[in-house]
């Protein structure tokens, strides 16, 4: 069979979501942001909530997220996306609000905002891209940087006496009673991308049912910041990030028996 006979509209099995704008993304080759943007666009498209969804983009590489997905966006000050999303969600209860933040934004300068927004149980989705580095500004050490990891501000590796331990903010958030659903995913292979998409869809369904905050951490790579190839960065993430940031479900109030609910 000739290739031309296979490439026909009736045989189409996978295509770019129509919510994704035809702009070439500014991200580096192999960046996990692109995969998560794609999953987000697919989920919003499949659920048919394009008109009702408002995203809050952070400061960081994903600051230009509004250029790539055709929904309403608001750009927030550094770390303040949960506070902005709180205002949007409270004044527009019929809208579906999500924030999209990196680890420098969420776990460092915005740690107070995210903890209190989650503790209040604001009705929103939080997508947390954890690549253990400040990617946009040149690969500096972040709160989530692993012990011994080399960055431009820790050239000898992160030292526990000088810099402290990596911050497991997702575990902290899972302890808060206001949060409904907390999970940690990755998006580096086809199977993990499918799992991550399922988790994001579940989070959006929780918000539609007004169940409270749903928090999704995506363990990601920053091959430019880590000074690796995209494929090498994925392998390094599996070997070094996963033992510290273990993928899996941390909290799901749907699965708990009523007496155990917070």
């Amino acid at each position, binding site marked *: 069979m000739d290739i031309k006979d296979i490439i026909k509209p009736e*045989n189409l099995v*996978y295509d*770019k979501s129509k919510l994704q704008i035809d702009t070439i993304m500014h991200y580096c*080759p*192999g*960046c996990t942001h692109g995969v998560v943007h794609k999953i987000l666009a697919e989920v919003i498209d499949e659920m048919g909530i394009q008109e009702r969804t408002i995203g809050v983009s952070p400061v960081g590489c994903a600051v230009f997220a509004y250029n790539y997905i055709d929904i309403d966006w608001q750009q927030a000050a550094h770390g303040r996306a949960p506070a902005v999303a709180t205002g949007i969600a409270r004044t527009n209860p019929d809208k579906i609000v999500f924030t999209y933040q990196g680890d420098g934004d969420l776990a460092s300068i915005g740690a107070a905002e995210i903890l209190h927004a989650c503790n209040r149980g604001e009705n929103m989705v939080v997508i947390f891209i954890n690549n253990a580095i400040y990617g946009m500004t040149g690969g500096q050490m972040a709160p989530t940087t692993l012990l011994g990891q080399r960055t431009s501000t820790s050239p000898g590796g992160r030292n526990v006496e000088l810099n402290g331990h990596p911050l497991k903010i997702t575990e902290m958030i899972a302890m808060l009673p206001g949060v409904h659903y907390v999970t940690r995913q990755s998006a580096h292979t*086809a199977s993990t991308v499918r799992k991550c998409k399922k988790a994001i869809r579940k989070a959006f369904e929780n918000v539609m049912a007004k169940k409270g905050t749903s928090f999704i951490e995506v363990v990601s790579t920053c091959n430019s910041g880590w000074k690796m*190839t995209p494929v090498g960065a994925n392998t390094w993430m599996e070997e070094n990030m996963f033992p510290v940031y273990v993928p899996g479900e941390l909290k799901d109030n749907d699965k708990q028996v009523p007496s155990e609910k917070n």
Partner: protein
Amino acid sequence: MAKVRGAVVVEKEGCKGCSLCVEACPQGVLALNKEVNSRGYHYSYMKNPDDCIGCSNCGMVCPDTCITIYRVKI
């Protein structure tokens, strides 16, 4: 002979040559081209088009969403 045939179309100008699709392909169909696109990246292409089964793993992992996949049963 395979019962399922697939085909992959890579949007040449959108590809950044990260080679994640090459790694994800279980059939070894994709490879990076020796030639470059207008932005200087070695874009991905179907090196062994006869082996493609249209599993869409490459499309799933592509960060730049530049892969379209077709599949047909024979």
